[in-house]
């Protein structure tokens, strides 16, 4: 179980997370949706200790991440796979070496077993035999699949996906969605998927949470989100330019005007 409890995080004057609370149950796939730049990636980077909260905490299986010492944090990270938005493959290493990198960190695996695990992970993402290729030779979709293979080769208990389908064509996006579903079925992992692609969210998610202005606006099952009456969530999932968010902006703008303040939005 992953628990975000009243998480606050600011970068300079910009308050990105402002009381973000969410519980991800064991075995489920939680999709976090929200506008670009609202702090979705910032939230999941707290799970692996890449960022430290200003207030509040993230707990993984009851362990508060920011309170762990370096050794315990490394042990926790070994149980979590992270799929980065642009794959973050190491350019100087081959695909095989990229996927093997996390496995080499472990002392209990021999070279033969590492090679076997790399081959299995690449097969699971439909890239069998890609070990000798370099990341520069791969398309965007293939790079994302290698990034996923690198994460699942560790057989993690948790998988965090940071915008896995952003920038991909619809067919490749659908392939990635299938891989996420297949990975969950094969490994039984608990997952968090960050996306603003609603088709992807409906395909892979058990529950969907919308992050808005630093906190959760609504969380519910796919059906509950589809049937939401919240104008902000409705506008987002339908991708309409006009709706709850614009109305809020208009209302804020009118209020500011009435108070004689500058037009600058908060």
């Amino acid at each position: 179980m992953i628990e975000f409890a009243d998480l606050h995080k600011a970068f300079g004057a910009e308050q990105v997370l402002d009381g973000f609370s969410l519980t991800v149950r064991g075995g489920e796939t939680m999709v976090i949706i929200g506008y670009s730049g609202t702090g979705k990636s910032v939230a999941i980077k707290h799970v692996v200790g890449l960022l430290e909260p200003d207030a509040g905490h993230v707990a993984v299986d009851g362990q508060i991440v920011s309170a762990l010492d370096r050794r315990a944090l490394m042990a926790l990270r070994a149980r979590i796979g992270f799929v980065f938005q642009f794959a973050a493959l190491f350019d100087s290493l081959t695909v095989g070496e990229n996927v093997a990198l996390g496995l080499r960190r472990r002392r209990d695996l021999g070279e033969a077993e590492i090679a076997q695990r790399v081959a299995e992970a690449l097969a699971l993402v439909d890239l069998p035999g890609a070990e000798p290729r370099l990341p520069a030779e791969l398309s965007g979709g293939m790079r994302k699949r290698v990034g996923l293979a690198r994460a699942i080769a560790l057989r993690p208990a948790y998988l965090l996906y940071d915008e896995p389908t952003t920038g991909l064509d619809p067919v490749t996006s659908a392939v990635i969605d299938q891989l996420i579903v297949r990975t969950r079925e094969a490994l039984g992992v608990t997952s968090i998927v960050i996306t603003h692609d609603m088709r992807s969210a409906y395909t892979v998610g058990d529950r969907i949470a919308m992050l808005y202005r630093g906190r959760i606006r609504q969380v519910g099952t796919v059906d509950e989100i589809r049937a939401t009456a919240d104008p902000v969530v409705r506008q987002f999932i339908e991708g309409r330019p006009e709706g709850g968010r614009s109305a809020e902006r208009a209302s804020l703008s009118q209020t500011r005007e009435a108070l004689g303040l500058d037009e600058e939005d908060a």
Partner: protein
Amino acid sequence: MAAFVVTGRAFAPQVTFLSTATARSYLASVFSSFGRRVVAFVAGFGRFGRFLGDVARAVPDVRTWGAQTASQMRRLGVDSLPIALFIAAFTGIVLALLASYVMTGAVPRYLVGTLVTKTITTELGPVLTGLALAGRVGANIAAELGTMKVTEQVDALETLAYNPYAYLVIPRVLAGIVMFPVVVAFAMAMGIFTGWFSATHLLPISNAEFVRGARLFFLEFDVRYGLIKSASFGFAITLIGCFLGLTTRGGAEGVGRATTRTVVYSAEMILVLDAFWAVTLLRS
């Protein structure tokens, strides 16, 4: 009260009178700009101190940095040999001809050998090689680590349970400390060889005269002094490159900025260290 600002060339100054409010605003902007620079300078020192602490904490992770060090020694050291030898070759030629030109008729010709050997081993070998490697090695490290930083590869390393300071920084710094003296030793040999070659082939100096001059004032300390300096240059260049690379922000523009700053700071640091070692080791 009014103030004025002088602009334009020195021989034709243009004096513009400012109103009190404008003068106050001008002074405020000057002070606030100065204040921001001071704060940024102090914050930079803080970040560098924290970086050194992180590097020190990564030292016990021998398994990680041990596996990376050999390849870095090849990349930083062996691959830098051609440029170092090229610079040393031409330095040796110029030095021999310059020594002969300056000292003609004033001192015995064999002192050309002395000057070439002493200067190459104690000063020009280490410093010119260091400046060249500040560009080649320092820029390479800053650009590589900066790109890794902005494309989340450093974050990826952390999520794979690696310590990025053990994986990326220690192997490069270690390779710099070990390999810079090796590269400089080859550069010294090349500089002395081309100095000897041009002295004996382009000047009226015999092989025996050059060798006599070279041996007359030769001290083992000179070579040791040059190599100690080189090791300190290697340490400074790699450390600056790693620090500015890992603190890169802002995409391609940030990588470019980190690379430029690495070359500039490394070159400055080489000159500071050069003076430091002269004051420390040559005052006997």
